[in-house]
């Protein structure tokens, strides 16, 4: 057993209101720079939709992630042979058009325009060339199903849905959508790290944050291809790739990442998970149907005395172990089994888990009329507005059973709370669904509390990074005593 600690996350999709506050918080801090304008380390997509960059989930196009080969796995579009062969021109790299051309409006013109007959206007100009452009796409162009024939209809997760099933999703009365906020998953088996020829990308041992060393990156751009989530971006100005760094300078100070801190829907949870690093390869190579269960089993019980002992032997700080015991994400993922990884079939063992959206049917069309009265409070889970297959393609590598159980648990919690607060449901209508997913009332109440009424400190449990030592993490402080600081001191200018 080789225990490491990992900062992991849970996003509760039922709570996301699609406000993009997270994206803006991130943009303001990290990517409001030349060459990075088009990057959204945090982006929010509407599902069904094609996302950002367009159709990122389609690995036939982008060749991201790992694929199973025999008993083992290999990178789909990069790696020692494929990567080095394709260095001069990378055939699977997304280009600007796959994201969008960033632009800004010339607001100064409103003030500085010569007096004339016409009202001055603020024209959009490209942030790359400075020329006038007409924006034709953006990172959230498909927001709230807008342009749905171009976007929602082309959702990659429809691939094994029958035309009739797809059609049903677009009936006006049944139409539904949910948001999918995405950041880098800080994977246990990161494809970006494996694909980097320079060895510039690495996973931090202490907290599992995946970072790109800007001094070592040489713009071979293999990580952009290899990350199946397209969360490694190429900065066209500096000639370096960049990615979400989980606000590690904030984390080290005990603050939480900006996207999570600012989250209006309070959908985000962050905490420590302990895992067994010896199992990564084995579990990442297992059968597709087992991926979710195997990944869950890599995370260890932080209250188990054996685990604690092994963790201490591995040098994991007591404060980290303590944080792992209080971790809200451990509850959601392991204890309650409510959160699932996004596209586990990419085999990177992502550390961002999602509580899938519960979208019950509230009404149906009968004899041409819209019928909103039904004999049960909510329709059966199997008749959810999103087909089970669709959600399964997103969160469980196509395994419908897995997603069904989660949704039934979520439903059981709601029924139980309805019973506690209103009490208008017959006993059997509550005990049956609860019994089916083996949930007792205490657990249901706990889930309810952490979902709806959590305090800030319950949503985010960050171990002390031992800031006093964290300086030494970065540099031998004595060496630079009396100097102008330490760390990255070069101006981030494009080279010759």
């Amino acid at each position: 057993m080789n225990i490491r600690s990992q900062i992991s996350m849970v996003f509760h999709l039922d709570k996301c209101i699609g406000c993009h506050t997270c994206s803006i918080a991130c943009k303001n801090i990290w990517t409001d720079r030349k060459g990075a304008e088009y990057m959204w380390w945090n982006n929010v997509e509407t599902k069904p939709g094609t996302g950002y960059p367009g159709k990122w989930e389609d690995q036939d196009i982008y060749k991201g992630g790992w694929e199973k080969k025999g008993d083992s796995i290999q990178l789909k579009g990069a790696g020692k042979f494929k990567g080095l062969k394709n260095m001069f021109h990378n055939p699977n790299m997304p280009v600007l058009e796959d994201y969008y051309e960033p632009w800004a409006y010339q607001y100064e013109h409103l003030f500085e325009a010569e007096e004339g007959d016409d009202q001055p206007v603020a024209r959009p100009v490209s942030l790359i060339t400075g020329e006038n452009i007409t924006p034709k796409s953006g990172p959230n162009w498909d927001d709230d199903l807008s342009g749905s024939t171009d976007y929602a209809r082309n959702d990659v997760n429809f691939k094994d849905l029958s035309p009739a099933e797809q059609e049903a999703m677009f009936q006006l009365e049944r139409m539904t959508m949910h948001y999918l906020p995405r950041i880098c998953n800080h994977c246990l088996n990161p494809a970006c790290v494996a694909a980097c020829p320079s060895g510039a990308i690495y996973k931090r041992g202490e907290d599992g944050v995946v970072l790109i060393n800007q001094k070592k990156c040489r713009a071979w751009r293999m990580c952009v291809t290899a990350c199946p989530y397209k969360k490694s971006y190429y900065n066209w100005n500096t000639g370096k790739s960049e990615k979400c760094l989980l606000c590690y300078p904030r984390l080290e100070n005990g603050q939480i990442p900006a996207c999570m801190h600012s989250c209006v829907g309070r959908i985000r949870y962050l905490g420590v998970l302990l895992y067994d690093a010896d199992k990564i390869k084995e579990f990442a190579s297992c059968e597709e149907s087992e991926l979710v269960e195997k990944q869950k089993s890599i995370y260890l019980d932080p209250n188990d005395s054996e685990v604690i002992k092994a963790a201490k032997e591995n040098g994991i700080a007591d404060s980290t172990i303590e944080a792992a015991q209080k971790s809200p994400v451990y509850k959601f993922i392991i204890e309650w089994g409510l959160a699932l990884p996004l596209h586990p079939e990419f085999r990177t063992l992502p550390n961002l888990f999602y509580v899938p959206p519960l979208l019950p049917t509230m009404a149906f069309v009968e004899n041409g009329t819209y019928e909103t009265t039904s004999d049960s409070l909510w329709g059966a889970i199997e008749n959810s507005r999103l087909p089970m297959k669709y959600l399964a393609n997103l969160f469980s590598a196509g395994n419908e059973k897995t997603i069904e159980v989660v949704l039934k648990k979520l439903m059981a919690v709601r029924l139980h709370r309805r019973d506690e607060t209103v009490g208008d449901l017959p006993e059997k209508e509550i005990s049956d669904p609860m019994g089916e997913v083996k949930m007792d009332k205490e657990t249901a109440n706990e889930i309810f509390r952490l979902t709806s009424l959590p305090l800030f400190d319950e949503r985010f449990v960050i171990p002390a990074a031992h800031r006093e030592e964290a300086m030494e993490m970065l540099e031998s402080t004595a060496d630079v005593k009396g100097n102008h600081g330490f760390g990255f001191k070069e101006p981030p200018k494009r080279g010759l």
Partner: protein
Amino acid sequence: MTNQFLFIGLPYAALFVVLIGTIFRYLNFGFKVSSLSSQFLESKELFYGSRPFHWGLLFLFFGHLIAFLFPRSVMLWNSVPIRLIILEVSALAFGITACYGLFVLILRRVRNPRLIKVANKMDIVVYLVLTVQIATGLWVAVSFRWGSSWFASSLTPYIRSIFTFTPDISAISSMPLAVKIHVVSAFTLIGIIPSTRFMHFLVYPFAYLWRSYQLVIWNWDPKKIRTSRKLFNGVRSRNN
């Protein structure tokens, strides 16, 4: 005098600059060492430019290297006419490939406003030097059909003499103009490596071939600290 300047002064200046310059730049401006890929801004034409250019150049580079390191083997190979022709024709083919690639690259660069935005002055120098280099190379290949034997018999001793600090320019001084230009631009190319994007081939990631795929770095590895017997426990970070 001119010959001495071009074939003794320039080579030594170039070698000195490249030796000191690349190390200095690597150590002090590591951030600025990059292939400065522009594929993100334009990918299609890059395919038709970058691939032929680099593969052509790579084979030519190794061709020159072999002729420099093993001149006798090259001469021996060339002693049979048909083999000489094979060598010459394939060298010419790679030369044309590289030339075509460079042509596409330059055209791509000047026609696309996005690419002009990310080009700098030294890129113009790079394109110029490469054009002269490849053009004269092709000129030599076409007009002097025994180029490979020549290189092995006359140029190799000259380059060797440079490296052994006993410069002997008698052979090179009597070469045709095309060869002279080719040699001068070659040393210019070497000399400008530290101040151009040429830096990128010096950082070719060989280590990728034998490193393990995953990379985990502890800023401050507690395990190592604990077991360290050294006075100064702890491992200096490799991240900065």
